[in-house]
């Protein structure tokens, strides 16, 4: 009887975690898109992250850290992708984003602003772009960002996006 109850509990917990992983899809996609400005690639990366996340759920120690954990998987997938594309180019070069960016359908002025912001983000070096999006879009702490990107916390201090 005890074992059965335990098994039920474990499996319902697993279902809950699965649901939470799936519910993170939009957030992961947004960060992925902000990093690569490529909707198709961001979609692929997101799919990879969720699949890996589900398969490795047992490795997640604290459930509250789910988002940070998924984003660190995203970071690794993104770097892997950059590395696999070409061996001779550096990741920095590959991570450069195109200057032109079609905006969403909206009022012309609002569209232009969005475009300019995305261009500015795209012009940032990869590391800064990642830090900026994680701090400002996902509102993660410097400590969490340092953990996700595997960098010293001191390097998370950065100048923000300048509003010209």
């Amino acid at each position, binding site marked *: 009887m005890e074992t059965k109850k335990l098994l039920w509990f474990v*499996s319902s917990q*697993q*279902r809950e*975690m*699965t649901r939470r992983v*799936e519910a993170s899809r*939009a*957030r992961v*996609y*947004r960060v992925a*898109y*902000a990093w690569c400005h490529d*909707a*198709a690639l*961001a*979609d692929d990366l997101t*799919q*990879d992250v*969720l*699949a*890996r996340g*589900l*398969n*490795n*759920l047992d490795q997640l120690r604290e459930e509250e850290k789910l988002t940070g954990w998924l984003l660190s998987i995203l970071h690794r997938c993104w770097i892997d992708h950059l590395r696999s594309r070409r061996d001779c180019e550096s990741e920095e070069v590959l991570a450069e984003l195109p200057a032109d960016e*079609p905006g*969403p359908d*909206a009022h012309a002025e609002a569209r232009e*602003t*969005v475009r300019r*912001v*995305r261009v500015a*983000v795209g012009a940032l070096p990869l590391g800064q772009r990642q830090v*900026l*999006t994680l*701090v*400002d*879009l996902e509102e993660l*702490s*410097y400590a969490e960002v340092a953990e996700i990107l595997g960098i010293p916390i001191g390097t998370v*201090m*950065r*100048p*923000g*996006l*300048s*509003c010209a």
Partner: protein
Amino acid sequence: MSRKMFSDEQLNAFVDGELAAAEREEILASSSVDGEVAQRLCALRAGKDLLRHAYDRHALPVPARSRRGSVWWGSGLAAGVVLVAGIFLGMQMQRTTPEQFGHSLDWASNFFVTQPGRMLVHLDHADTEHMEAALDLVSAYLERNANAKVEVVVNGRGLDLLRSDRTLFAERIADLQLRYDKVAFIACERAIARFEMEGERVVILPKTLRIHNAIAHIADRVQDGWVYIKV
């Protein structure tokens, strides 16, 4: 009266809520008397708002590549891989050894691959032997390409493979997910909805991904050069 100068990093950390109390107080005090500090803080906050607006979840572009099934059903490639699947199944029925299975996989991979290491197995009916063959295929492929991405997509009655109350393969699936990082088992939500509407209670295995429309997803993958095997 000397003016305290704050770096961009300090002001950013302030806006991010990352400063210790003492420093935070200092900047707060300064911003109330120093117009320039106040202006810089305002600009930083505005920058954050702009960024959130530019990447607002509801305004992000979605991948513009949903194609309907009819576009690729007629392609020679699709016919070819269905043929290959038939060969696999035939060999499976004759109890081919995993070794032989693996060799045919290599042959098939060379024949069809446009992007190495990406395979999608599609199951849309509830035949147990076909389910077993599909899992054998996945195991054999991953054994030779541990780093490959494999998706097992089920719709129609193939959903039974991933239904807790109906599948005979829950343990095997869990084992594959444990051993290989990039294998994904995916259930079609339209199929789930249809069975639920017919009064069935559908419980899916944990760790199963869901997609809205299996056929559109498969079309995208084929378009991207994934090897496609319909079992």
